[in-house]
């Protein structure tokens, strides 16, 4: 049986910097504010080693610390948190919106969507099965497990190339698998990778399957031009295939999304649904930075505060 809680003035989905900035403003304006996150507060900031460009910090601040401070500040003004929460259902269409977490239903007139983005999974057989046992998403974390070994890197953007530069400190060789004929990374990084004798690049290829034989990873890759399939045997695979917006929760809602799945808003952060706003990396925008996320959250909160 569902237990309905006391309604909130504002529910924020996502506890990254955009959501937390909105919470700080809203709670400080005495709006009963609930922040729901499927993980813990901080978003991508909490896992950023050092943040050097956030105004007000002369020395770089660890991302974990900055994220923690944002959370504490939101709590100080009375924000409630529902963390490590699995949202079972959501309704954004009516005047009263509701969000169901386990057997609890929260209601509100205003929702701010601040769900951010996550690393893209390839959605290829074997990817989840071998995560952490041959497949990795972090060179800093796992590079040393591949000392003097041969690895594949999937991706050709900035993250893939920067992580590859880190990996080169450990590995014997890197084969880059990239879907295009040119790297999308910044030229200076791309040139360093291309010039390194430990690196070779397989252009216009994509992985189709991962498997393991003894301690080796077997990766079936497809030549996108000829459709030929080949199997590459390496000690490990690192995947850096970009980011995707966290909007799968809204698939069956009338929320308007772009072709890439980002939420469309106006300058006030309003979506096409009355009372629903979107802020931070989840919305359509050109630049994705902490400062911009904070700005988005602030704007949305101020818009809602004015209506209350």
């Amino acid at each position: 049986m569902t237990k309905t809680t006391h309604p909130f003035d504002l529910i924020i989905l996502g506890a990254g910097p955009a959501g937390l900035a909105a919470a700080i403003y809203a709670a400080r304006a005495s709006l009963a504010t609930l922040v729901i996150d499927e993980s813990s507060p901080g978003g991508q900031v909490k896992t950023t080693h050092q943040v050097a460009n956030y105004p007000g910090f002369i020395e770089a601040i660890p991302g974990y610390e900055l994220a923690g401070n944002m959370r504490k500040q939101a709590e100080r003004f009375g924000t409630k948190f529902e963390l490590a929460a699995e949202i079972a259902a959501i309704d954004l269409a009516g005047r009263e919106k509701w969000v169901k977490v386990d057997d609890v239903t929260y209601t509100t007139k205003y929702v701010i969507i601040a769900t951010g983005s996550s690393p893209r999974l390839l959605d290829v057989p074997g990817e989840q099965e071998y995560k952490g046992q041959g497949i990795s998403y972090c060179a800093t974390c796992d590079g040393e497990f591949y000392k003097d070994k041969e690895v594949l890197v999937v991706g050709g953007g900035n993250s893939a190339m920067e992580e590859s530069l880190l990996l080169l400190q450990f590995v014997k060789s890197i084969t880059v698998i990239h879907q295009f004929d040119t790297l999308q990374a910044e030229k200076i990084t791309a040139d360093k990778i291309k010039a390194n004798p430990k690196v070779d690049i397989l252009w216009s290829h994509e992985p189709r399957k991962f498997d393991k034989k003894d301690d080796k990873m077997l990766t079936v890759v497809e030549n996108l031009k000829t459709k030929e399939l080949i199997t590459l045997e390496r000690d490990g695979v690192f995947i850096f295939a970009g980011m995707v917006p966290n909007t799968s929760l809204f698939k069956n809602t009338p929320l308007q999304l772009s072709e890439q799945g980002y939420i469309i808003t106006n300058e006030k952060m309003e979506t096409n649904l009355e009372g629903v706003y979107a802020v931070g990396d989840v919305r359509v925008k050109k630049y994705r930075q902490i400062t911009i996320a904070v700005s988005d959250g602030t704007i949305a909160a101020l818009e809602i505060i004015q209506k209350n």
Partner: protein
Amino acid sequence: MLQTALPTLKNKEELKELIDSSEKAVVCCGRMGPMCIPVYDILEVYREKYPDIQFRNMDFDTTDAAAIKSLPECRTFQGLPFTVYYRNGKVVKATSSIQTAKQIKDIISEVLA
């Protein structure tokens, strides 16, 4: 050094004491990287949601972390963190690399319910 709200096991003696004295325990052995921090934070949240389970972390770079690294269940692991679930002194599950809150919750339901 781990700088999280989750209590940190300082050595293998503390790990042994935890396993021997707790019916249910979860130990996350890692560093302060992007795959580890989310797991520590989720376990910190779960300390309140599952008061009958002891949640700890352990620094992967300490010598005594060998007590986790050398477990047969962790032999093939190549991704941080190593998260080990104990019940009545025995390993009932172990995972490598980042886990979502749902994945951890599902494991708890499976082996520590």
